[in-house]
């Protein structure tokens, strides 16, 4: 699979466009600049004359459709007559669609692209924007905010990984199975906890940190005078699970500590796995974040929970009247996605073997991400005050991802509230999720660029220090009803899937995982995934009989 860079593919110009550029350079574009008209929704049009309607010079607009303005002589032709114009006037091949400001080659009869033309359009858009919006747009197009800090974090975690290697060499798996596979006993309706713990136990940067004993339990206990520390307790679980002992482990101490931390969730009853996940990260942050970093809430926190899971979301509120955009950034440790109930699967429609059923709809993860980043028109009862217009206006809200975390945790909101019947129900629909995920289309630069017609801006930062490509490593699934059900986690280790159902660890085919009802999906950056796989492969031990015969399987 080709890697997709964040740069546009700069398409080769057709010979007519190349010829035009040679002869006329940028003069045609500069002339047009004065006639460009921008709109708050990001569209750019061309208006030649304020007083008369544009008409095709050949047919005077009986049935005209799109109009194209010749860049050399400014004559207007409709789509039916553009070829006539280029044939009658030699060299007049390049025109521009006045509705959308797109270059058109009359001879090739196709839309063409030129970086210099896009620059002119973009410049006009920027000039016309309210100044605060300009800053927010430019900031949105930049890929990285603080390159040095992120690099340090990645380098630091890589150092941890080399310490982990040292630790690993002292270990021997007692079977062919990867280290770290161990069942967790259900302590009484605690499968919500076990399922999340399994995912955390196999999140590569998180795992490396705890197995390298970066959280020093001795120092922590001395400092905290016996107050419970979730990070210490997780460290204990890591040591136990990666010890090589395969009998199921009871995370009782952890449950005890967690109940002390989350008073409101401390009870013997069924719980939500996502709530637990958030609560655990919060608990680790509380202990680790203190005293190390005073900026607890701005996403720069250096605690292991945030370094691994924290990303940044961008929210844009745009006034539909003037285009003024106000932007806010919020850190997040996961993304909760609504299921896109309107999507359909074109493959399924063609493939008759999947029986359609009214009760079971289906959706895809990419459709949910599309829904998450789609511009949402706020209702007329939710008019927001626009600083530029100085009054309340209809607005558009759009989310995008400013910064991706090392481990991306996606939460699927499988509930539907009916305000009419005042009930909630669980959406049992199947959600298709990919094993490899490219998050590029959901990043702020892609979203902001799309708002302005995907012009080649030419000033975004192209290289990304953190890639947008992820690999799945854990899926937490739920079966049953809204208030009673069961959680199971599937883990992908060295391209083999394992089912972790409380104390029972079994191997499963990937099809089981694809068909399961996902609730939380965990992805890790591709590079970290491949490195983690290397770490886990167990080294074959040579047989005493013949040290030179390679052993199939291991240990």
């Amino acid at each position: 699979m080709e890697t997709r860079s964040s740069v546009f593919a700069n398409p080769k110009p057709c010979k007519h466009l190349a010829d035009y550029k040679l002869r006329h350079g940028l003069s045609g574009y500069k002339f047009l600049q004065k006639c460009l008209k921008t709109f708050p929704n990001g569209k750019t049009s061309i208006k030649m004359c304020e007083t008369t309607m544009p008409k095709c010079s050949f047919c005077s607009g009986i049935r005209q459709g799109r109009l194209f303005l010749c860049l050399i002589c400014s004559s207007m032709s409709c789509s039916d007559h553009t070829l006539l114009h280029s044939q009658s006037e030699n060299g007049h091949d390049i025109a521009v669609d006045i509705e959308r400001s797109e270059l058109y080659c009359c001879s090739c009869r196709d839309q063409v692209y030129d970086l210099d033309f896009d620059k002119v359009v973009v410049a006009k858009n920027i000039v016309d924007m309210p100044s605060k919006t300009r800053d927010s747009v430019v900031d949105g197009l930049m890929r990285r905010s603080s390159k040095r800090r992120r690099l340090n974090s990645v380098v630091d975690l890589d150092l941890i990984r080399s310490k982990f290697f040292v630790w690993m060499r002292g270990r021997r798996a007692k079977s062919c199975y990867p280290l770290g596979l161990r069942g967790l006993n259900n302590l009484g309706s605690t499968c919500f906890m076990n399922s999340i713990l399994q995912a955390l136990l196999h999140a590569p940067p998180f795992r490396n940190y705890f197995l390298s004993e970066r959280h020093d339990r001795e120092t922590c206990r001395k400092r905290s005078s016996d107050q419970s520390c979730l990070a210490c307790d997780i460290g204990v679980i890591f040591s136990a699970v990666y010890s090589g002992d395969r009998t199921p482990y009871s995370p009782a101490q952890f449950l005890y500590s967690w109940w002390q931390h989350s008073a409101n969730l401390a009870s013997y009853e069924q719980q939500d796995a996502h709530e637990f996940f958030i609560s655990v990260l919060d608990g680790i942050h509380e202990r680790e974040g203190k005293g190390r970093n005073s900026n607890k809430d701005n996403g720069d926190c250096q605690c292991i929970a945030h370094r691994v899971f924290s990303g940044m979301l961008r929210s844009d509120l745009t006034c539909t009247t003037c285009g003024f955009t106000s932007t806010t950034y919020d850190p997040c440790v996961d993304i909760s996605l609504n299921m896109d109930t309107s999507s359909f699967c074109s493959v399924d429609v063609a493939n008759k073997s999947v029986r359609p059923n009214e009760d079971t709809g289906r959706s895809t993860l990419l459709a949910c991400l599309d829904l998450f980043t789609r511009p949402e028109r706020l209702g007329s009862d939710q008019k927001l005050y626009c600083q530029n217009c100085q009054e309340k206006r209809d607005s558009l809200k759009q989310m995008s991802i400013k910064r991706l975390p090392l481990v991306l945790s996606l939460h699927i909101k499988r509930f539907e509230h009916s305000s009419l019947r005042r009930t909630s129900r669980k959406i049992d629909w199947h959600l298709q999720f990919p094993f490899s995920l490219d998050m590029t289309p959901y990043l702020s630069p892609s979203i902001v660029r799309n708002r302005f017609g995907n012009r080649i801006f030419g000033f975004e930062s192209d290289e990304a220090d953190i890639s947008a490509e992820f690999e799945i490593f854990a899926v937490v699934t739920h079966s049953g009803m809204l208030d009673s059900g069961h959680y199971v986690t599937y883990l992908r280790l060295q391209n083999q899937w394992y089912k972790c159902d409380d104390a029972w660890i079994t191997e499963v085919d990937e099809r089981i995982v694809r068909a399961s009802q996902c609730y939380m999906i965990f992805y890790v950056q591709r590079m970290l995934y491949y490195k983690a796989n290397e770490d886990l492969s167990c080294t074959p031990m040579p047989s005493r009989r013949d040290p030179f015969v390679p052993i199939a399987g291991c240990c």
Partner: protein
Amino acid sequence: MSVPNEDNMSPHMQLSSHFLGDLLDSIIVDVASECHRIARLGLDRNLEEEEEELRLSAQARVTVADPSNSGETNGKYVVDIFGQTHPCVANEVFDCMNCGRPIVAGRFAPHLEKCMGKGRKARAKATRSSTAAQNRYSRGSLVSAYSPYSTSTSTNRLLNGTYSHTVEEYSNGTCEGP
């Protein structure tokens, strides 16, 4: 939606039809132009990969739905990959870190809830366990340390439970059959 025959239409209807046609054409060209740019500049997602994933997913669902393919055993009587079997209720026994009594793992949560006091703000027991040296679960005196933490609303939760039996009072912490 059938297009009415132009000859049968009144001039008024013809004009309306003409305008509607123009509007539709304009929308279609807008979308085509936008998609053309996205495709030509390489901004579109790798569609072949997406379709492959969808195909695999559909295929997987068919395979799993087929009853003859139940290689996947759901029961708790299954043997795990290490060759072990486990009872429905986990039967490991360890000491409660709050009160020191030996508890069966599978009944630990209901015991702990009672032991810590339900809602456990009021009756948190301060017990210094004497077996701290031997038992790695014990942690010494208990100090209530909880942080205000905003949770999602109660309706936004998918709850779990493996046992259909209700909570039962255990007088001495020993295991009773369901």
